[in-house]
């Protein structure tokens, strides 16, 4: 067999195949739930109900989606330029770290200025962290997949070291946990009394901003050109390495905003379990969104819904919650296959 590009894929082909991938994922998950002894239809019903069935469930899903929008954008931006940033987890913690360090009293800025300043510092911290792998790639040709991945381990140990040392909250009863940020450093709730905070609004704004950058600016054009064909881009006079650096800074900054928003919006302090792998899940979000920044919002809601729903389903139906991860992995693999099949025809010879 071989693959033949389709000159002008029809709309049903471009959207139908990804939809089919989602359907197939649900079918596979149903079969697995059946193996675990659950009724497949009620299991899926429970997941849906747990994710979107009540006001509380919906807000929980939106909350869970917030960091995933940031990490999903981080992956989408980088992958578009074929810069494989697998280190969003570390960049998220870099953003959280700077928020806690500056937000617990080191910066005595007046309230309306403090939050934007913290967000900006987080962006810078995340960008700097990704600068090293980006430099290693452009200067020495070291594969960024391995370096960004190894940085996740290194940076989490670094955070652990700080939380057991200088950053440890003396009031924390011995837990490796930082002090809480100042009240002025907390993101306000969108509706008073409900958990949803303005981190979600910032995430939506970021997605729109990235969409504008990608479709309306020279940088966006250059990033796509570098991703499509670096050789051709170089030949066309695009400074490939500079574009890669800018991509890396943008990607690292976006991932760090996830850490800022989790600390300032939700948790108030830094712990080692601030992120249950948001950085890695962002990759899946980006792929499900076909690397489209606006699509990232919907993909993050879908993924967050699976996690939140699977948690409540697991309690009700006694099916292991790892089903959520299996669903995401399956969705990821089927989605990349679907994207490919929507652009190429398989020819037997």
């Amino acid at each position: 067999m071989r693959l033949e590009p389709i000159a002008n894929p029809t709309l049903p082909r471009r959207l139908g195949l990804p939809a089919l991938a989602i359907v197939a994922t649900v079918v596979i998950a149903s079969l697995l739930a059946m193996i675990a002894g659950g009724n497949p239809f009620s299991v899926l019903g429970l997941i849906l109900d747990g994710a979107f069935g009540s006001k509380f469930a919906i807000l929980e899903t939106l909350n869970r989606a917030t960091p995933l929008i940031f990490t999903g954008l981080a992956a989408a931006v980088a992958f578009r330029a074929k810069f494989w940033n697998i280190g969003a987890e570390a960049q998220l913690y870099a953003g959280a770290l700077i928020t806690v360090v500056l937000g617990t009293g080191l910066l005595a800025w007046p309230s309306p200025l403090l939050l934007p300043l913290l967000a900006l510092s987080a962006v810078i911290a995340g960008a700097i962290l990704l600068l090293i792998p980006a430099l290693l790639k452009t200067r020495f040709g070291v594969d960024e997949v391995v370096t960004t991945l190894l940085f996740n381990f290194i940076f989490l140990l670094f955070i652990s070291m700080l939380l057991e040392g200088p950053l440890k909250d003396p009031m924390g009863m011995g837990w490796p946990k930082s002090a809480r940020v100042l009240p002025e450093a907390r993101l306000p709730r969108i509706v008073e009394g409900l958990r949803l905070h303005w981190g979600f609004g910032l995430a939506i704004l970021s997605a729109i901003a990235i969409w504008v950058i990608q479709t309306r600016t020279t940088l966006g054009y250059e990033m796509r050109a570098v991703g499509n064909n670096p050789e051709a881009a170089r030949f066309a006079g695009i400074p490939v390495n500079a574009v890669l650096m800018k991509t890396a800074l943008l990607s690292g900054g976006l991932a760090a905003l996830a850490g800022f928003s989790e600390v300032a919006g939700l948790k108030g302090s830094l712990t080692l379990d601030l992120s249950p792998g948001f950085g890695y899940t962002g990759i899946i979000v980006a792929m499900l969104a076909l690397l489209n920044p606006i699509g990232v919002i919907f993909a993050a809601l879908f993924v967050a819904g699976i996690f939140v729903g699977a948690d409540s389903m697991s309690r009700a139906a006694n099916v292991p919650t790892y089903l959520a991860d299996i669903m995401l992995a399956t969705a990821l693999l089927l989605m990349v296959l679907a994207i490919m099949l929507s652009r190429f025809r398989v020819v037997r010879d």
Partner: protein
Amino acid sequence: MEILDILLSASFWAAAIRIASPLIFATLGELICERAGVLNLGIEGIMVAGAFAGWMAVYSGTGLWMGIGVAMAVGMLFGLLHSTLTVPFGLSQHVVGLGVTLLATSATYYAYRLALPEVTSPPKIEAFQPYAIPGLSDLPLIGPALFHQTPLTYAAFLLVLIVSFTLYRTPLGLAVRAAGENPSAVAAQGLSVTAIRIGAVIVGSGFMAVGGAFLTMSAFDSFFFEMVNGRGWICIALVVFGAWRPGKALLGAVLFAAFDALQIRVQQTSLGTAVPYQIFLMAPYVLSILALVLVSRRAEVPAALMVPFNKGER
């Protein structure tokens, strides 16, 4: 001086060889995939699956070697999945690899929860026991280090020889290396690049799973969550460090393991109490990155690594 004492003790080197063994299996597995032109980032998950499958098989009553066979078979299945998506369909090897890792890990944990629903501490099995090779094991220092290990460690070293020989001395090895260097030439010979690459990924993934099974069946005697703990990613760095050669990869794995065994011991010395333990835990990862930087200068990377081969285009 405490460090010198550690370096001169037989138990230290025995530990280093033991720690190196799973890395050797998995690094060889990755090396075979990459030599054929496919980067397999599924390695971390495949090791988790192998660790569970081998242990579960033995726990359900099969023999130890049968357990290794089961682990290998499970690894090969994930290899089949990976290579089907990346070779004929040419999907992104990065994305597919991460997907396979997530799928293998979560499916393993799911299976574990189904098999042992109420268990809090996982049951133990009768694992591989060290076997002292008569005569050789009495040698000072290297005797206990090299010749008083479990059979699986001997198998790891043997596998280095087998893979080396196959890659450099047989037509099959030549075909595999050519598939990673110059696939068009392979196709011109009338051979199927697709078949060679799929085969290499399947076999390589089988070895990765055996590396994982070493953890549950030789190093420990039961299965824990997070037990593979980044070893797969380290093996990817070891392949680069070993410049895609089995012998050098073995050397890298042993050096790395020695460093790992050293940091555990140094933590107990006066130096260890003065420095936060996280610094020691970070060191292997920092070392891996440094190794990548040093080695990347003399790039011997297979020319067609990560380049999909499509007969339609030349």
